[in-house]
């Protein structure tokens, strides 16, 4: 049954005058706007409580933790090897790089991180650089889309698809790769993989150049990014930013150069640096990093020990039965290997007691693992230094003074992943 209500509509001019009188106190009053946790521009579940004066942001309080899964607690309850799949889910845009970072941290605890077989080092470097390109491509695509340039997103996702194919060919999984093992890799790359990587590099250079023509000199893009979200050198160091966000501010710090691990010291590449520290600089740094990554990839393809098909049977894991699993053939035919396999699977890699911190240059910045071991196959405490978490802590200082329409641009330029930030 429909009901009829009588409504009185007064003189609108008189009501407007009355409202203006009532609202006089409201003039100059600040408004609190809740952005997120489900907002397309927050790239996940970041929530920011913004205090606004008109369109100007006067205060910003980022609220993280919506994706908290307790990874550090989980790590204390399983062996080192069992935790590898959890690292896929930290920065889920670059699982291959996370796998490498974590494996290197545990290997440092074991004291074998510089004794890895050369072929393993090269494959790991290629994985890291592919992951870097993949993560930067998504960051760039989403960043451009938030700013209104939708085409770039389509370009970058076409290229990312190829990287997923490469990850699948190497590890069997597209997203949750879990490709590394403590002391090596799950398996060798297939014989055609290097050729595929080379082909990808050639195609990618074209696509990147195309994306660049759409953005770098685009008037709208430049006007929206330049002189926005400026992070000075001092501020970047004080907030311990890392990765492209730190280098965008002109600080020459890249763990691949400053504390070389794997075979990075044998490879030639430049560190991209910004000069102003604004959003545009961070964008440029990421573009250049992708170009340098293809440069590294090409060198790896040329120099990989054992060649593409590995006819010489170069090992990809440390041939030590106490660290990596022996071959199935040996397990079934030899007592010692059988015992090794049994111990590794049930109790995990027996690590010495001690503390170790290993920082890895991940696409988002320095992904560090601090492991406190009391011996045995399970860490006593595992702390993950997530670059996104640290990079986000600057928001409270970066956002005030900007306009509300600048928020997606600043967030996009910081390029964070909540899965990593919240752990």
């Amino acid at each position, binding site marked *: 049954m429909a009901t009829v209500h009588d409504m009185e509509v007064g003189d609108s001019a008189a009501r407007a005058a009355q409202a203006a009188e009532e609202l006089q106190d409201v003039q100059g009053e600040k408004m609190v706007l809740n952005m997120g946790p489900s907002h397309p521009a927050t790239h996940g579940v970041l929530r920011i409580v913004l205090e606004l004066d008109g369109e100007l942001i006067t205060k910003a309080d980022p609220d993280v933790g919506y994706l908290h899964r307790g990874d550090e607690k989980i790590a204390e309850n399983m*062996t080192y090897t069992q935790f590898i799949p959890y690292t896929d889910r930290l920065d889920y845009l670059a699982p291959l790089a996370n796998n490498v970072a974590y494996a290197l941290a545990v290997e440092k605890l074991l004291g074998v991180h510089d004794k890895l077989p050369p072929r393993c080092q090269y494959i790991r470097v290629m994985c890291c650089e592919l992951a870097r390109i993949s993560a930067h491509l998504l960051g760039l695509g989403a960043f451009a889309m938030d700013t209104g340039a939708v085409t770039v997103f389509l370009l970058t996702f076409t290229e990312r698809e190829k990287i997923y194919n490469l990850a699948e060919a190497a590890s069997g999984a597209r997203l949750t790769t879990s490709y590394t093992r403590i002391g090596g890799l799950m398996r060798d790359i297939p014989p055609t993989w290097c050729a595929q990587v080379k082909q990808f590099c050639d195609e990618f250079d074209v696509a990147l150049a195309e994306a660049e023509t759409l953005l770098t000199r685009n008037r709208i893009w430049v006007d929206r990014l330049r002189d926005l979200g400026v992070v000075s050198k001092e501020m970047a160091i004080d907030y311990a930013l890392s990765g492209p966000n730190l280098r965008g501010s002109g600080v020459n710090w890249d763990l691949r150069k400053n504390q070389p691990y794997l075979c990075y010291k044998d490879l030639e590449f430049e560190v991209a640096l910004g000069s102003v520290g604004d959003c545009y600089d961070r964008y440029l740094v990421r573009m250049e990093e992708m170009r340098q990554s293809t440069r590294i990839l090409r060198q790896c393809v040329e120099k990989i020990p054992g060649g593409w098909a590995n006819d010489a049977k170069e090992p990809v894991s440390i041939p030590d039965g106490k660290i990596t699993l022996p071959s199935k053939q040996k397990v079934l035919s030899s007592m010692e290997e059988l015992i090794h396999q049994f111990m590794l699977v049930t109790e995990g890699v027996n690590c010495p007691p001690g*503390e170790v911190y290993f920082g890895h240059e991940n696409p988002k910045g320095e992904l560090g693992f601090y492991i406190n071991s009391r011996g045995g196959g399970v860490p006593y405490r595992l702390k993950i230094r997530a670059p996104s978490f640290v990079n986000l802590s600057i928001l409270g200082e970066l956002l005030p003074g900007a306009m509300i329409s600048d928020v997606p641009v600043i967030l996009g330029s910081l390029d964070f992943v909540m899965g990593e930030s919240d752990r």
Partner: protein
Amino acid sequence: MVVYHLRGIVNGVEIRLKTEVSEEKSEIPSVLSVWRTSNWHEREIYDMMGIRFRGHPDLRRILMWEGYPYYPLRKDFPLAGKPTDLPGVAFTRVTPMEGGPFVTVAGGNDSIAREPRVRVPESDEVQLNARVEARGDNKEMRGQAFGPGPIEKK
């Protein structure tokens, strides 16, 4: 114990600083005035471990929600979590894999005893209930037994 890992960007030096914190006091001074990045790190330690930082201007929970009563990274906090009064699906039931570590420990349960799949579902439910109700700390907090409730006989 709180561990600081510091790195100098100019000379590339790394320093690891450790301070002892007693569990009763659980308080140390904040280093926020020295490094601004420690703001969120100290909030996280407070949130996860319950260590308070004297002089921190904004010591709120960061990963867990405001009002959450426990410090989950402490060793006495069970892996399966603890129930809270807050509504939601989290922590209303014990997770099926409760009782880590998932590693064979000498003298511990063997894999058949730990493997949830070999349990009979019905007796499993009763077992879980009994285990949840047996937890002293839960009873203390809520003053009553809780859990999924007994299974009705068919």
